[in-house]
Each structure stands twice: as C-alpha cells, then as structure tokens.
C-alpha cells in the first residue's frame, strides 16, 4: 500500500509550483567575524513545506531571520517573486519558544498582530476564534499562558502567526522543547493546517525524523561556514498520518536523510570531534 503512495507522489508542489523566493549567493558575516552563512542558493516555491535541516551553527536560523527581514544579508540577494520584498504582513513567524505576552489572555495574544494593524477586538473576534478552533484551543480564550502546557502555548503561537493569513510561515525549531508525544500531535495538526490552507512553510529543525515527516523538500545544511549541503525531495503523498510514521517508506527516507546529514556534518573539518 505504501509502495503505491510513493509511486503516485511526484510531490506535486515542487514540480509545478511557481517560485516564491530565490536566495542567490546569500551570505551573512557578523561583526565578530563569524561567517554564519556563505553563498547560499535556495529556491522556495509556492506551497512548499521546506525544512532546513542541519547541526547547530549551520546558519539555518540566520537564514530564516534573513527571509523574515529581521536581518539583512552581507552579500547576495533575496529575490521575492514579483521583485522587492514581500510585505511583512504576508509572513508569519513562529519562534523556538512560544514567545507569548505573559500578561495577556490567549485571545489577546492571537489578536495582537491584528491589533497592531488597527483591527478592533470586536472586528478581529471572528478571525481569532476561527484560528483558535483550527489549533484546537476553543474554550481557552481567557486563559493566560502560564495556565497552559508547553504544547498548548505553541499552538497559541502558531495561531498568532496564522491569524493574519500569511502566505509564508517561518518556523524556527518550534517543537524542539516539547516532549515526543506532544511533538507528534503538533506535527499532525500543522500538516493538516498546511494542507487546508496551502501556504508556504520554511521549517528549521535539527530532527531528521521531523523534517522527513513534514516536508516535501529537505534542505540539508552544513556548518562552518553555514551553507547548503544538499537537497532531498521527500516524495511521499500527503496526507501523512500515524500510518506513514510507522511505514517502511518513512524509515527508508529517514535513513537517506540521516546519511546526507552525517555527510554534511563530516564535511566540516574537525566537526566530528566535538559532540553535541
């Protein structure tokens, strides 16, 4: 059965979809002399679920910050389709920590991006309520972050990033701090959301299993200097569910990605001597 899935899965998005953003020769050197990124070429297509996979120090978070416009490249260009930079309201960002306002209720936290655009509470209510339902948090509108579990906080964070209906969702190791059971659940829910709305995701992670489960493209990065090492298409059909997680195909793809990652790590001189 799984065999069929692979056969009929020429990852539709990556073949036909138009380019959304192209990074051309992008590099970033910090003022302390550290080269975080060097000569990165990367094409992100509309509807991609693209994972940036790599060891710490490979510049994957820096790449994400460059795409978000939180930082500017030292060299190279970020070429948004249609030229110029994408309006920031078209980008959602999910940080490694939930990064919620601790004094504000769940509702107010999700309302915030709209509030900053001048949308009143009443006007924002339908969008906020709908988004909270999408991340399965209906009934928690009035709770404050400290009353929620780690997974629920992350759901609020995702709802907040998505409430403006962005075309691109950037995620910086969002589930790294969660336990595995919660992480699996959030993986499933995120995929569901992505399939319904078909936005583009750039997902930074250091988990092989997570990147393979979620993405249609895994971009493996190497460190010192941070660079793109190789790219791996994950040609398995969506929707991917728990059955996929336990399938031999998934295991094979993980092994493949793992091998590439090991090569990427070894490509950095001396890197295999320091254990992370």
């Amino acid at each position, binding site marked *: 059965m799984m065999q069929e899935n692979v056969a009929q899965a020429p990852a539709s998005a990556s073949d036909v979809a138009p380019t959304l953003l192209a990074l051309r020769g992008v590099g970033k050197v910090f003022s302390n002399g550290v080269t975080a990124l060097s000569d990165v070429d990367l094409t992100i297509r509309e509807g991609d679920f693209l994972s940036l996979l790599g060891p710490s120090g490979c510049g994957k978070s820096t790449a994400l910050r460059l795409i*978000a*416009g*939180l930082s500017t490249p030292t060299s190279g260009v970020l070429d948004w389709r249609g030229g110029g930079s994408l309006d*920031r*309201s078209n*980008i959602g*960002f999910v*940080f*490694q*920590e939930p*990064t919620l*306002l*601790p*004094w*504000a209720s769940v509702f107010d936290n999700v309302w*915030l*991006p709209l*509030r*900053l*655009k001048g949308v009143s509470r009443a006007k924002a209510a339908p969008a906020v309520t709908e988004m909270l339902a999408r991340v399965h948090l209906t009934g928690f509108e009035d709770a*404050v*972050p*400290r009353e929620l579990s780690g997974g629920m906080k992350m759901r609020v964070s995702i709802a907040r990033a998505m409430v*403006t209906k962005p075309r691109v969702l950037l995620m910086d190791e969002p589930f790294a701090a969660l336990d595995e059971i919660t992480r699996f659940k959030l993986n499933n829910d995120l995929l569901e959301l992505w399939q319904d709305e078909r936005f583009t995701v750039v997902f930074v992670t250091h988990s092989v299993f997570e990147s393979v489960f979620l993405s249609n493209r895994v971009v493996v990065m190497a460190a010192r200097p941070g660079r793109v090492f190789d790219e791996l298409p994950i040609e398995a059909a969506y929707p991917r569910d728990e059955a996929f997680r336990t399938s031999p195909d998934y295991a094979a793809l993980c092994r493949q990605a793992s091998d590439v990652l090991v090569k990427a790590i070894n490509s950095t001189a001396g890197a295999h001597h320091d254990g992370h």
Partner: protein
Amino acid sequence: MTAIDEGVLKLDPEEARRVRQERLERIGRWVLPLAIMILAIWLWDRICVWNEIPQYILPRPGVVLWTLYNDAGLLFSALLVTLRITFLSLLLAVVGGVGLAVLFAQSKWVEMSFFPFAIVLQVTPIVAIFPLINIYVDNQTTKLLLCAWIVAFFPILSNTTLGLNSVDRNLRDMFKLNGATRWQQLRYLRLPAAMPYFLGGLKIAGGLSLIGAVVAEFVAGATGQSSGLASRIIEAGYRLNAPRLFAALFLISLTGIVIFLVLSLISHLILRRWHESALKQER
C-alpha cells in the same frame, strides 16, 4: 494540598510529618510575632514600673495609648498634613519616575546622558539640599513636596527603566515583524513588561515618600513653619512630652506599614494572574 484529610488518604510517616509541619508553620507565622510583640510591650511596661522610670523619660505603653486617644484631634490633623505631602509626592514620583523612564527608554543616548543626574540627586542627602530649596522656593507645600519627591522618585525611575529594557528579544522581533510602531511597542509590550519592576519600585517609593515628607517637615519645622507630625514630635520633644512623642512615632510607623500593605495588595492584584512573584507555590 495541605488540606489533605489524613483519615481518607493513607499518608506515610514522612508525608504526615510534612503536613503537620506546614500546618504548624501557618499558625506560627501569625501567632509568633504577635506573642513576641505582646511580650515586648509587657516587658516595656514592667521595666517602667520596676525601675520607677518617670513618664517624661519613658512612658508606660498604656499611657502612650491614652495619649493617642486624648490628643487624637491634634495628632490626627497633623497626620493628615503629613499624609497629604506623602501621597502628593508619591503621585509626583510615579508621574516623574515613569515619565523619565519612558523618555530614557526612547533612546540609549538619552539614558546615558541623563541617568547620572538622577543618581547624583539620589545619593545627595536630602537634609543637605534642603537649605538650598529653602532659599529658592517660597511656598511651604512646594518645598516639602520637592523634598519628598527627590527621595521617592529614584526607585521608580531606576526600576521602571530596568523593566522597560528587560523585554524578551523574540517578543521584540515579533512586534517588529508585525510592523508595530514605536508607540505600539511601548504601549503593548514594554510598559506591561515593566509593570512588575515598576510595582517593586513603587513599594520602596511608598515608604520613602513618607520618610521624605517627615524629614522635610523636620528640617522645615526647625524654622517653625510646619504643622505635620514631625513638627508635633519636635514640639513634644522640647516640652519633654514623651507620651505624645511616642504616640506620634506610633502613628508614623503605622502609616508606613499601611502604605506598604496597600501597595503590596495593589501589586498582588495586578500581577496575580501572570507574574511569578505573585503566584502561589505549588510544591
């Protein structure tokens, strides 16, 4: 958690001991200080009697209480004068402290340039500055207010400044990503984030504004222009009226305690839902 019924839940000896310990501590927290206080007052009374100490040197506690009742009109009207200065100066300290902190928060350069002045103002003893204020300012109330304000505003300024600068980096980026204006960032992010720090400063400033008011009255009172509690104390001192001295002192301490408790309550009410400091321990 502590209300576990030992009859229903079988507790092992260690847990049972912990429950007993917690119950004891809860009672002890109130009973112990109260008992010590009563003991101290009783001892004070006995010392007066045993050593036949005259009233004008050390009055018995009963006499102090009696004076408080007898001179109530005089003392409480004086207290009202002191309280007015205290609250006005606290209000001005809040406005000035927060206002300056917000100004400092606008730019590192402003903060670097002007913060040293605030420190100079803070470390110079107010008693030493007062003669100058006396020369420059005519209005009595303004003089006292200025004094109390100088003493009280610094903790609010320094705490609020710290708070405004202690915003989580990612939250700042999040605001930036959503195109927040400077004002929005202040209103929705930095001011709420500074709230716990501000309230901490407010608790200190509350006590300081009372001290500032009393000290200012003392210095002003020396030139015979004031009618607050401090001047009553000076007056009573000249007349060797020790009972009234004690009564006035008691009123000042009581006022300070009440101010502290009220500000603590306000702080608790504002922070109770989200800030660590106001949360009940759950372990």
